[in-house]
């Protein structure tokens, strides 16, 4: 059982589809979760239909959505690290790694969850995963917490193989849907459900399992 989990992701909503169910499950089993969200997703393109946010108001809107998502999941501790959307790969690495190391030192997590570097499509995702892996890789091998990575780039399984951590979250779909729906500027119900109205069975198949790859440090 995990007691202390540190989640490191760059954008509000990154938690919604890939990890929210697992986090709800860990929390039900007694875990304390800290979610370090690097940016406010201030460069996001979705602002609602019709748009209810602007480039100027989007950061505040997304911060509130993120807080609502955390409440839906049950996350106890949200940290906003204050980096700027789209810039993680260009950020000063010492500053980036330093802020992650600081959290690791403070929390002493038994598990870290982030994106798989190189297999997570968005440059911010890859750069966040890289920073986590770089930071944890510097720790002595016997003190490193396991790092579970999300991956979703095309054909990622050809190189990194099958996920080794598969979590059934069907019991936690209400919380997961709550997290997804909290990000109302980002996800429209129509987009979420596709063109057809999706029966419960389909939602369960589509959202009921979350997959992670344990990062292998050389």
């Amino acid at each position: 059982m995990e007691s202390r989990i540190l989640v490191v992701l760059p954008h509000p909503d990154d938690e919604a589809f890939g990890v929210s169910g697992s986090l709800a499950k860990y929390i039900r089993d007694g875990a304390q979760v800290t979610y370090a969200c690097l940016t406010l997703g201030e460069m996001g393109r979705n602002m609602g239909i019709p748009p209810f946010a602007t480039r100027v108001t989007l950061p505040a809107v997304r911060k509130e959505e993120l807080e609502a998502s955390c409440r839906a999941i049950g996350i106890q501790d949200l940290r906003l690290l204050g980096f700027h959307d789209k810039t993680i790969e260009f950020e000063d690495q010492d500053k980036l790694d330093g802020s992650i190391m600081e959290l690791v030192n403070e929390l002493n997590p038994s598990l870290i969850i982030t994106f798989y570097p190189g297999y997570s499509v968005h440059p911010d995702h890859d750069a966040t995963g890289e920073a986590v892996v770089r930071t944890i890789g510097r720790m002595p091998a016997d003190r490193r917490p396991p790092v579970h990575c999300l991956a979703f780039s095309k054909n990622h399984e050809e190189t990194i193989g099958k996920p080794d951590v598969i979590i059934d979250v069907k019991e936690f779909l209400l919380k997961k849907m709550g997290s997804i729906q909290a990000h109302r500027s980002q996800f429209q119900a129509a987009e979420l459900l596709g063109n057809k109205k999706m029966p419960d069975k389909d939602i369960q198949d589509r959202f009921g399992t979350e997959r992670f790859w344990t990062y292998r440090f050389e």
Partner: protein
Amino acid sequence: MQLIDKSKVKEMIDLLIDQDLYIHLEMTMGAYASHVDSSKHPAATFISNAVIRYTHGSISGNGPFRVGLKTSQGWIYSEGLTHYEDEDVERLIMAGHDSQGKLIVALQLSREPF
């Protein structure tokens, strides 16, 4: 955000003439463009809080709209604008959203940094 009212935007453009302004200018296809459709060439660009000053400017088209601002040495140009922030009287906040509501282009001018 409201659909652009050309005359209101023109008033605002005129109000901001001949002064130092912070500009946010952006165009993006979205970070997932080539993930969703590999034939798409992903492109995005933005400049945030650069200081500019224009001597003359206007809005044209029937929607989506174009805005051109003439500076002492050059131009600022943006096409595809559909929405503006009608409640903002100090700043000019404009954006172009596609049929799915996603932001494609943004042009913002303010006397204070964004």
